[in-house]
């Protein structure tokens, strides 16, 4: 399944890139997370198509997934 990943802040730093499309075998967000050992120790929330979701969220082809590090606006 094709997933469009975007990376920001400390997550982008650890991933050493800002975006990529990946082809991955994953049913849920939790499955996907298991492929990202780079950010295992990082604090983040997950957004799919710009909404924050839980670990059991079921992914679809072409979803946009972002691991959101802590917010710092203001």
């Amino acid at each position, binding site marked *: 399944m094709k997933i469009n990943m975007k990376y920001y802040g400390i997550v982008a730093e650890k991933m050493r890139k800002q975006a990529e499309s990946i082809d991955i075998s994953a049913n849920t967000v939790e499955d996907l997370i298991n492929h990202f050992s780079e950010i295992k120790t990082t604090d983040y929330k997950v957004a799919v198509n710009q909404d924050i979701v839980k670990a059991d969220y079921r992914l679809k082809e072409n979803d946009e997934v*972002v691991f959101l*590090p802590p*917010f*710092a*606006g203001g």
Partner: protein
Amino acid sequence: MAEVEKRKSIFTEGAITPQKIAESIAHHQVKTDIGAHDIFLGQVRADIIDNKVVAGIEYTAYEEMAEKRIYELRETTFEKFDLKCLHIYHSLGRVNAGEICLFVFSSSPHRDDAMGATRFIVEEIKANVPIFGKEIFEDSSYQWKTNK
């Protein structure tokens, strides 16, 4: 109810200038149904962390999501408060200590609504809008900022 503005970006490159704020205030003088404005400005602090001084913050954002959250936030704010105008701007890129990175401007016939709306928006931005900040120290080292 006042018209909710179309999807104008909240993001602006670099610091928000006092001149921009003055122009924004001046534009409201034709709106003679306004009795109260409340303006919040976030300014970058030269905090001292482990003996190093913050020289500035470099902001990035997940812009599509941030704009969507702000659009929804504007709609909620106009439902909760009696507002005539509402402007929100946040910096992207480098903002030095002493410079302004956030400008929230609520205008209402009455002070309770203007002040309540500004407060509501500031809290929401800090908690729910995906903006990220790298605190850069004077020696060029850095750490990632986290809102409390």
